[in-house]
C-alpha cells in the first residue's frame, strides 16, 4: 500500500475511532488513547489544538511509556523545531531537514533507554 493511501486510511480510522469512543463510552467526554493487536500497538496523542501524533510500537513497550514519549515528542521536537519555525507551513507535510534530524535523534535516544 502506498504511503498516501496508508495515511488516508489511518486518518479515517482515527476519526472513526474517536467518534466510536465518544458514543460507546459511559462518559461522553472520553478520548481514544491507544489500541493493540497481537502484534503491535498504535498510540495516539492529541493536543488541545487538534494536532494528532500517532505512533506504532511493538507490544514490549508499556503503554504509559509510549504516551509519555509522544508527549515529550510534542514538547521537545514539534513545538521547538516545527511550530517555532516561521518558514514552515504546518498544514502541508513538514519539509524541514532540521525537524527530521531532531526527530530521528529523539527517537534514537528513546530507543537506547
Amino acid at each position, binding site marked *: 500500500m502506498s504511503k498516501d493511501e496508508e495515511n488516508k486510511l489511518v486518518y479515517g480510522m482515527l476519526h472513526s475511532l474517536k467518534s466510536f*469512543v465518544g458514543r460507546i*463510552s459511559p462518559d461522553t*467526554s*472520553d478520548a481514544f488513547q491507544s*489500541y*493493540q493487536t497481537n*502484534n503491535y500497538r498504535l498510540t495516539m496523542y492529541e493536543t488541545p489544538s487538534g494536532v494528532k501524533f500517532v505512533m506504532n510500537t511493538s507490544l514490549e513497550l508499556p503503554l504509559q511509556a509510549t504516551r509519555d514519549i509522544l508527549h515529550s515528542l510534542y514538547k521537545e521536537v514539534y513545538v521547538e523545531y516545527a511550530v517555532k519555525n516561521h518558514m514552515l507551513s504546518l498544514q502541508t507535510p513538514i519539509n524541514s531537514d532540521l525537524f527530521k534530524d531532531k526527530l530521528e535523534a529523539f527517537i534514537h535516544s528513546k530507543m537506547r533507554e
Partner: protein
Amino acid sequence: TFPTHPIPLVLSSDTGKVMVKFGASGNVKPGHSVTAVNKQPVSGLYTANDKPILDVINDPASYPLTITFGRTKASANEKLMLASIFHSLFAIAAQISPVEQSSGIKELHTEKFTLRCFQTITGVKFFVIVDQKQTGCEHLLRRIYELYTDYVLKNPFYPIDMPIRCELFDQNLRKVIEQVERTTVYNSATLA
C-alpha cells in the same frame, strides 16, 4: 431547577430527543437528554401537554422550570451501528499493521475505560467494556463464547444473526458477570 431564562446549557434536538450539546450545570453534561419537564415525563420532543420542549425552555414566562436530565441508553439500532463500526475498525487495524499477519484490535484504551475483544475462529467477535484495572477478561470472553454456543446457537428457535433474545443466555450471562465481579481482586494501593 432553573430559576430564570436563559439556562446555561446549549440544547439540540437532532436525534429525536432534546439533548445537551454543550455546557454543564451540576451533574448534567453533554450527552444527557431531557427526560422530564416539571416532573412530567416527556415523549420525544414534546412535553406531557403536547408542547415542543424547546419552546417551553426558550419562553421566559415558563420559569422557574424544573428539568430532569438522564443518560439515554443506546437503542438497539444504535448498538447495531456501533457494533458494525467496531467490526470495520477491527479489520482496518489488521490491514495497517507494520508487521505481517496481524490480528485485529485486541484491546482499546481510552481515558475512562478499556475495551477488550476476542475473535473466534469463525470470525464472530465478542467485546467487553471494562475498567482499566479489570483482569481476567480473556477468561470472561471465552466463557461468554461458551454460553453463546450453548444457549444461542444450539437453540433451534433462534434466528441466526438477529439480536439475541434467549432467556437462558441472559440468565447465565448475568451469573458469569456477577462471578467475575465477586472474584475481582481490588488492589489496595488503587483504592486509596
